[in-house]
């Protein structure tokens, strides 16, 4: 029974998903499935509440050491529950009662969240793999849900093929790490490396392949090619979920593997992640400058933000882990927020696509325009928003660990990013030249207002009073004891032991 408490949010989400499916089958054919969305919202709310409650549990493992709830995994449980809650509300607003497959869509969102949550708490690579597949497969399916457009199945196909390709690299990487250490437990791997002098060549190649696989999932360049196409083709409410939830979970896995299983190899993975961070920031921001389509622009911007989070990774200190976790929260808040507005203005079938289509939105609907401006400002990283503190902690963590160049490259990139975000802001407030028949903004529904309220409140609180979240992120970082020490004295002794002992 005690074990079940450690996976209670996942159990609740699974039950809610099953209930949605059963209710979907029981409802008479002609009636609308939209009310099922509120059932799903209830499930997500319950999962959120239970995730908060999990902070009361003492840190520990369950089910024979397969899952571990600690400050780190609970932090991500809360984040993912919040993301799913907001995405469900956005979906409720975007769909019409006639939209096909609504019941399935709501159920898939809940099931996908089960996978993401398990990814953050799994400490056995087998469970990481199964959970990763749950989260990936459900997002592949949801990307193809806009059935009226030929773009949607196409984006599902690209996502699926490239995603499975990356998964096989991830798996081969795990196989090599298993071959070197003889175990697939995160802690067991670290112990084996510390004590048994495993073959380092196997470990290096395995690590590189795991980074390729996870780099794809977080859409870090050069593994980002799928991102713009998939975001453009998928329904906007689904993009709100898949641009934040699976990414946060994949970052949690990357943190666990890098800091939990392979801390002794940090001299090898830090340069890899350094380059990934630089390439992601640069390609993301330069790519976004060229885009005229809003969702494609946001896709490139999400590549750049993955780069900022990777900057925090390379900092190799408890502060770095905390900064990465904090950034994941603030990015989730502002990105889900902006997709709430894109999805409402553009609709489920995307009739507004270009930045120019948004001209004059702020005059038509001051609420939506104002909220979108606020999220864009946060994405730029201007003070009093979550984006500012996110970038601030990331770059200070990098500077404190001596990665000054990385911080400078990041700051230059943030400057470039301001251009394309501001271009959208300018469009929002410029007078539309003619009547602009496209820009018919429906009255926001209660669900949308709730979603915007949650995301903008989170962005604002993170920007004004980040203390509580930062403390939670710091507590999460303490889970990785090996990085809890001062960054100036990384566990270098064991690395020497490994390399000389060969």
């Amino acid at each position: 029974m005690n074990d079940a408490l450690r996976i209670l949010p996942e159990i609740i989400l699974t039950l809610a998903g099953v209930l949605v499916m059963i209710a979907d089958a029981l409802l008479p054919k002609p009636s609308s499935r939209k009310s099922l969305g509120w059932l799903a919202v209830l499930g997500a709310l319950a999962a959120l509440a239970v995730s908060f409650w999990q902070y009361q549990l003492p840190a520990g493992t369950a089910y024979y050491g397969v899952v571990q709830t600690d400050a780190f995994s609970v932090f991500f449980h809360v984040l993912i529950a919040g993301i799913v809650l907001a995405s469900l509300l956005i979906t409720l607003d975007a769909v019409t009662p006639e939209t096909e497959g609504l019941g399935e869509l709501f159920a898939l969102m809940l099931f996908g969240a089960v996978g993401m949550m398990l990814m953050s708490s799994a400490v056995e690579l087998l469970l990481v793999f199964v959970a990763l597949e749950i989260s990936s497969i459900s997002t592949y399916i949801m990307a193809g849900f806009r059935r009226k457009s030929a773009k949607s199945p196409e984006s599902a196909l690209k996502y699926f093929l490239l995603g499975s390709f990356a998964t096989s690299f991830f798996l081969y990487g795990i196989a090599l790490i298993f071959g070197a250490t003889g175990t697939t437990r995160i802690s067991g791997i670290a112990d084996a490396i510390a004590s048994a002098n495993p073959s380092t060549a196997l470990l290096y190649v395995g690590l590189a392949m795991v980074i390729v696989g996870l780099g794809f999932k977080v859409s870090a360049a050069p593994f980002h090619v799928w991102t713009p196409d998939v975001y453009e083709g998928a329904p906007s409410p689904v993009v709100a979920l898949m641009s934040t939830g699976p990414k946060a979970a994949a970052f949690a896995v990357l943190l666990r593997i890098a800091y939990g299983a392979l801390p002794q190899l940090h001299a090898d993975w830090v340069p890899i992640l350094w380059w990934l961070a630089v390439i992601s920031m640069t390609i993301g921001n330069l790519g976004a400058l060229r885009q005229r389509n809003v969702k494609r622009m946001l896709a490139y911007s999400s590549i750049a933000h993955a780069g900022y989070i990777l900057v925090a990774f390379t900092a190799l200190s408890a502060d770095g882990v905390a900064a990465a976790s904090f950034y994941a929260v603030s990015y989730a808040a502002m990105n889900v927020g902006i997709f709430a507005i894109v999805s409402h203005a553009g609709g489920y079938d995307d009739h507004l696509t270009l930045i120019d289509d948004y001209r004059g939105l702020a005059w038509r609907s001051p609420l939506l325009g104002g909220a979108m401006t606020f999220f864009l400002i946060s994405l730029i990283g201007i003070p009093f928003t979550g984006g500012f503190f996110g970038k601030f902690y990331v770059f200070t963590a990098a500077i404190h660990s001596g990665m000054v160049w990385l911080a400078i490259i990041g700051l230059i990139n943030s400057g470039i990013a301001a251009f394309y975000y501001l271009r959208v802001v300018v469009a929002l407030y410029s007078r539309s030249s003619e009547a602009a028949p496209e820009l018919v903004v429906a009255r926001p529904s209660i669900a949308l207002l709730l979603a915007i309220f949650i995301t903008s409140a989170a962005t604002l609180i993170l920007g004004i009073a980040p203390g509580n979240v930062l403390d939670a992120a710091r507590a999460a970082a303490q889970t990785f004891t090996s990085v809890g020490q001062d960054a100036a004295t990384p566990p270098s002794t064991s690395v020497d032991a490994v390399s000389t002992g060969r």
Partner: protein
Amino acid sequence: MHLALFIIFAGLCVAGALNLLLQRHPINSALSLIVVMSSLAVLYLLLGAEFLAAAQVIVYSGAIMVLFTFVIMLLNAGKEERTHGSKLAYIAGFPGAAALLGLLTYIFLSHSAAFGHARLGEYLATTGDLSRVLFRDLLLPFEVTSVLILIAILGAVALARREH
């Protein structure tokens, strides 16, 4: 004996995989893949994984590949057209795959002594051995796959359903 069996079935695997690459018609590729999978089952048996050898034949060659051939027939897929694929795929892909192969082969062969030799008949993993680990230590991942399968059913139905 072991070496002879290994060489025969490893040769079949590589030949099947290359045939998958070279054939232009998807059904031929699918059949070559079945050859690869069935030969792999024999290799699993040589390594002492008897349950997985059976599962390989039943799940992979049986279920998964039948699904593939079924879809190829359903969509009436014809010969591959010779269109110019992405140049980048050729330029980066071939050397990339070759480099990966070279690197892995080098590592495996240079550590060959540490990996040891496999003898026939040693360390047979029976179904009982597997299930003791599967249903105790790894019970949670096993249960969690039910969510995965539920998603797969849900997704396959939702995507392949015709619009009305």
